[in-house]
C-alpha cells in the first residue's frame, strides 16, 4: 500500500479502510499500528480518522443502514421512511439494534441516488424508490440471511 503512493502518508485512508473492513471499526491500537507503519505520530492518524464520518471508533451493527435525507430524498418522503425504520427497529438515528444486527443512520451526506429517491444504502448496496413496507422487506431478508446476529 505504501509503495503505491509517491508519499507513504497517502496510505493512511486506505490503511484505515483495510482495518475497518476486517474489524468493522478502528480500535485505538489499530491507529497506533498505522502510525508506526507509516512513520507518523498516533495523533496524526487519529486526527484523520476522527475527521471522516465513515470511520468508526466503536463497534457498529453488522449492517449499516444509511437513510439519505438530503433535498431530493426529503422531497419524496425520506423523513417518513426514517421515522418508520426508527420505530420498526426500535432505535434512534445513530443507534444500533440490541441484537447488534443493524446500525441506523439518518444523518448522512446525499448518497447520489436522487433518481431513485427515497433511498437507503445498506452496507454497499443501494435500495431505491422505497416505501416503508419495501424497506422492511429488504431488512427482513438481510436479517434472515444472518440469523445468528453478532457473537
Amino acid at each position: 500500500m505504501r509503495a503505491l503512493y509517491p508519499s507513504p502518508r497517502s496510505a493512511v485512508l486506505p490503511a484505515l479502510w483495510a482495518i475497518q473492513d476486517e474489524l468493522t471499526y478502528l480500535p485505538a491500537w489499530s491507529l497506533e499500528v498505522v502510525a508506526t507503519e507509516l512513520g507518523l505520530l498516533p495523533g496524526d492518524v487519529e486526527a484523520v480518522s476522527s475527521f471522516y464520518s465513515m470511520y468508526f471508533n466503536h463497534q457498529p451493527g453488522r449492517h449499516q443502514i444509511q437513510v439519505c435525507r438530503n433535498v431530493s430524498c426529503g422531497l419524496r418522503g425520506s423523513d417518513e421512511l426514517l421515522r418508520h425504520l426508527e420505530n420498526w427497529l426500535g432505535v434512534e438515528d445513530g443507534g444500533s439494534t440490541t441484537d447488534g444486527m443493524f446500525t441506523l443512520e439518518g444523518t448522512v451526506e446525499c448518497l447520489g441516488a436522487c433518481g431513485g429517491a427515497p433511498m437507503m444504502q445498506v452496507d454497499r448496496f443501494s435500495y431505491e424508490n422505497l416505501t416503508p413496507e419495501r424497506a422492511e422487506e429488504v431488512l427482513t431478508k438481510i436479517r434472515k440471511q444472518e440469523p445468528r446476529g453478532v457473537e
Partner: protein
Amino acid sequence: MDDEKVLTRHLGAPGLTTLAGYEKVGGYQGLRQAIQMGPEAIVAEVKASGLRGRGGAAFPTGTKWSFLPKDVFPRYLCVNADESEPGCFKDRVLMEEFPHQLLEGVLIAAYALQVTHAFIYIRGEYRAQRELLERAAKEAYQAGYAGRGVLGTKWDCELIVHGGAGAYICGEETALLESLEGRRGQPRLKPPFPAVKGLYGQPTVVNNVETLSNLPYIVTEGGAKYAALGTEASPGTRLFCVSGHVERPGTFEVPMGKTTFRDLLELAGGVWRGRQFKAMQPGGGSMQVLGPQHLDVPLDFKAVAEAGSSLGAGALVVMDDSTCLVGVASRLVDFYRHESCGKCVPCREGTYFESELMHRLEAGLASRAELAELSDICANMDGRCFCPLGDTATWFVMSALRMFPEEFESHCGAGRCPVRAGAEVAA
C-alpha cells in the same frame, strides 16, 4: 437524437463495464490516437472543444491544463470522483455504466499532461463503484493501456483508485489534495493554485469525472464536432440529473445552450401527481432557487447566471406547489452545518447559527427580528468564508427569501409551518 450524444452514446451496448465490451464499441481507440497526436495536439483539440469543467465551477479545461508550469516534473492528475452535491448523481452513472470510458479519458489527459500518476479520488459512500473502477483499472493494466510503457511507448502511467471516507468538503479541489496526502480534508489557501503547487507540492490538475469522460469522443471525433453539439457560448453536451417532484427522475444527456429547463422537465415526465411547478434548484444543493418564470431559460452558463443562479454540478431539483421552501432551506443548511470542516469561523459558526434559526423558523417559532438576523448572518458569511462551502450555504436560503418573502414571513410567529398546515386544510 443518438448522434447528439457523447457520454451516453454507447448506452445499451452489451458488456460495457468490461474491457472487451468497451473495445467492441471502439473503446481505447481515442487513447491510441492521442498518443499518435502527441500532447500539444491533444491540448489544442480540447481547447477547440470548448469543454468546461463539469464539477460546478465550469472553468475551461484546456486553459486549466495550460496553467501547468513548463518543465516541472513530476506532475499529477487527480480525478474528482467525490460527487456529493445534493441532487447530483451523474458521475455515479458514468462510473457504473461506462467505467472504461472514464479510464480512457483519464489516460488521455494523463498523456496530454505527461503525468506518471493519475489518482481517482472517489467518495467513501461509493464503495461498490470504487471496486468496479478498481476492476476496470486492473483490466486496463493487463491490456497495456496503463502501467509501464503504455501501448509500447516509453510513457509509464499508474492509475490509482483512492477511496475517501465521508466528507463533502473533499469535493473542493485543495481539500481533496489534502485528503489524498493522508490528512484531514480541509481546504488550502489559494494561491498557489494546484496547477502550480498541488499534490505533494507539485503541479497538479484536478478534473471532474464527467469532464474527463468526454475526452475519448473529443480526440476521435474532433473538438470542433464536440463544440458544435451545443452553442458557441455553451459548447458540447452535458449530463443533467433531474430529481425531486417529477414523474421520472433520472439523468439525461442534452446539448448545452439549445435545451431549456422546460425541455429537461419534460424529459423527466413533468411535475409529478398532476401538481403545479413551484420552484427549482438548477445546479445542486448549493445553487440559488429559480421560479416558474425561469423555465424557458436555456441551459447556457450566461443565461442561467443572468437569471440569478448557476448550472453548478448539473443537477436539477424540482419542487411542486406543496413544497415549503423554508423546510427545504432548513434541510440544506443542516447539511452544510454537518459538512463544515471547521477550518474558518464564518462557516463553522455561521452554519451553526443559520441552522438554529432555520429550525425555529420552520417550526413557526422565530420572530421577524430573527428573520432579519438570518439575513444578516448570511450576508456576513457570503464571500467571507475560506472556501465556497460556507458561501454556498447561504445561497439557497437567501435566494428563496428574495423570491418567496411572504412564505418566510408567514412562518414568523405562526407556531407551525403554515405551508404544511394549508396543505392539510386543502386535503
